[in-house]
């Protein structure tokens, strides 16, 4: 089937098997390998992307269902060479270890902050409850989302300065 999908702002026209899952389409057809696959039961959330602005697990969406719609993947977070605050916050707060769940966590966190700019810890844990991390124990992921929220809300000048002052240098 022919589909046209806008991914990270760019339009792709492809011919896919009807059974192709969106996760495989992104990874194998478009070579956007930041979206990961960690299970076969829609349990882990490593494949989380935004579909028309909403967080979905791309292992449980068919590529054809994305026809005519917009997808945002982890590769779309960075703009003009600038990391998104949620990416910076994950780095800053040591919210990743092996990094395999990170793209999904980042997208779920990004979606949460779009809807709820000042989430409580309970709301953060709820919003990320579809994403499994086997390394971090979530404490620092929660911290990272709080840090990103402060920065995005503009009250976060302080947080931003903190990141600038102590953030690891980019190399």
């Amino acid at each position, binding site marked *: 089937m022919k589909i046209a999908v806008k991914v990270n702002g760019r339009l792709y026209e492809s011919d896919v098997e009807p*059974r192709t899952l969106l996760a495989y389409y992104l*990874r*194998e057809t478009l*070579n*956007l*390998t*930041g*979206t*990961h*696959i*960690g*299970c*076969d*039961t829609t*349990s*882990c959330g*490593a494949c989380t992307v935004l579909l028309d602005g909403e967080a979905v697990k791309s292992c449980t969406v068919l590529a054809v269902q994305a026809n005519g719609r917009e997808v945002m993947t*982890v*590769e779309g*977070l*960075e703009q003009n060479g600038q*990391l998104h605050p949620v990416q910076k916050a*994950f*780095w*800053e*707060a*040591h919210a*990743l*270890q*092996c*990094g*395999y*769940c*990170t*793209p999904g966590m*980042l997208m779920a966190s990004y979606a949460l902050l779009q809807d709820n700019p000042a989430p409580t810890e309970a709301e*953060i*844990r*709820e919003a*990320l*409850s*579809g*994403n*499994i*991390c*086997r*390394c*971090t*124990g*979530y*404490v*620092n*992921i*929660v911290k990272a989302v709080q840090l990103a929220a402060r920065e995005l809300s503009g009250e976060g000048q302080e947080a931003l300065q*903190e990141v600038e002052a*102590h*953030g*690891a*240098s980019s*190399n």
Partner: protein
Amino acid sequence: MALRQTELRPLGKPVGRKEDPRLIRGKGRYVDDIMLPNMLHLCVVRSPYAHARIRRIDASAALAAPGVKLVLTGEDLAKMNLAWMPTLAGDRQMVLATEKVLFQYQEVAAVVAETRAQAEDAAQLIEVDYEPLPVVVDPFYALSPEAPILRDDKEKKSNLIFHWEAGDREETEAIFREAPVVVKQDVRFPRVHPSPLEPCGCVADYDTARSKLTFYVTSQAPHAHRTVLALVSGLPEHQIHVISPDVGGGFGNKVPVYPGYVCAIVASLKLGVPVKWIETRTENIASTHFARDYHMTAEIAAREDGKVLALRVKTVADHGAFDGAADPSKFPAGLFSIVTGSYDFKAAFVEVDGVHTNKPPGGVAYRCSFRVTEAAYLIERVMDVLARRLGMDPAELRMRNFIRKEQFPYRSPTGWVYDSGDYEKTLTLALERIGYEELRREQAERRARGEFMGIGISTFTEIVGAGPSHTFDILGLKMFDSAQIRVHPTGKVIARLGVRHQGQGHETTFAQIIAEELGLTVDDVLIEEGDTDTAPYGLGTYASRSTPTAGGAAALCARRIRQKARKIAAHLLEVGEDDVVWDGTAFSVQGLPGRSVTMKDVAFAAYTNVPEGLEPGLEASYYYDPPNLTFPNGAYIAVVDIDKGTGAVKVRRFLAVDDCGTVINPMIVEGQVHGGLTEGFAIAFMQDIPYDADGNCLAPNWMDYLVPTALDTPHWETDRTVTPSPHHPIGAKGVGESPNVGSPAAFVNAVVDALSPLGVEHIDMPIYPWKVWSILRAHGVTE
């Protein structure tokens, strides 16, 4: 919060991770991200039966299916002498079953096709005619005379794999005969699975023109894998290039060689194109190596005042169909004999029987230094049983029995020599920080109101960092580790190590060690691991061994560089070498503070201006064979509340005080502790892989085998004491496993403590709400 990577003297500081910039951009390179031209995909056909004879395999329909290029069966592999492969425990395992299958989900055939979907479709078309055989799932039944012998391929016609003993039976028996107090407890450690988020997989790429196999694989031990592959396949070792790219967690699951790897290699050899095999989560849980599954009985002999005298332990260990335990060769039950823990026992005797059943092979050291988790859980659980029997506070009982600071180095009754520790200090800090006395007062008040609140303590000792090589090897490969450091003319460094991280942060922590030793910044040092063509030989990353072994190698290798640098510095400073002093950032002249040269000055001179007679260049390697293991310890306290209506256990607080010796990066250590506690929490409350009587796996995916989410997981509190290892070059001990080793007992002790007014002395993990609910109802407790 993370610190810049541009500071001098970075050791001990929370430096931000060098790995993260690529990973937060989705630019990691995991095995499944590798897409090569003309690459084919392999799918494994698995047995629906736990024990069955294979009468016939018909692959004709699969071979005719769209896109299919190859079907492999055990018979095909047998012609190449590859139907069997060695396991880490020195047993052998079928790659693809020929005569019979021994566990559900066992590998029976492999299909290679142009796409993954085509391979999966064609796998459905393989017809296997099975004749079901009687199934053995209970290890105790497996040992009985009427049980069928599962491994008729073995010379020894018995389901008993090994009987192993440690300690002194007679001395222990003698103490037990005289002891005023004896407690006994059966303790089960359920079968669990490491379940890293990234499943296992590989891409095998055989280049016929160069006769070279490039093998990308989810590997915690790439060099060991290369050696095993060379021995199994007959390919020359230098023509095998193993690359372990970014690895999405390992936890012990990515130490073994799996049949899918061998099939992908054979397929690539036969077809001359790259072949990718990536398992599903179901395949990962139901066929790759499990952990634990220990049925233990422990007895403690003690005096009335609580002083422990002797420990006796008997264990039946379910190893499944093939003994795939990732244990050092001399230790079929791993380091289980650390079971005397943090306590000064006069004598101990430990025996373990390893048994075959119709289950997947194992068990691996899952975030554990070879069966240490089982040992730590057992002793910490049974110490609480003793405390309850004597009516003593569990903290007081522990303080009374700790190995004292001045007793180190301490020889345990099972023969280990503990390097260092200050157990009293660690527990004292934990008790103070959690507010122990106040919590006990609160507990008494709540109990008076009929509420169930519990406080659980675990004061464990770990044993990590294998070598030393005189004692430790796997399949004959000695367990040392290595580092190679190359300093370039501008003072920039590439260092390569024989281990392979899977999230532990080696690219940062080892850079910190080397930068500290060489007076450079973390930015100056690039760490590379996991490529067997470039990295020095090492045994890999598991069992918390990287810092104790490769971390030691990195420090000593850097010191070797510094020795040569001193000669060059003397030349630049125009003084004798004996007059040169190193202050951590520069060389200067003794007594002349004004003149100094940095390592960068020296590095440039190493290539442009060396003194006469000195070899140019500035590089070194170091193979470090540690003199002993390291012994991290910790004091963990859990506070729980039980919901009388549902039996749900709420972890109100959890404090982990760890002592892993010198801390390289406190941020990373804390992160490791958080992660390990979460896995320990899952094991205590959520995880088990049960089998029914026919050997069907009842938890083969993440719908049934539960992994905690952010919603389930408690908030973790951490602290630490620092008792450096006396023999490690920087005093570090390793920490990644401590929380997974130490925490299950704290959780279970807390729940049992909460339920102790009902007379409960023990509950086996996992503590599902229904178990607690049943206990409450049995005692007439209602909401």
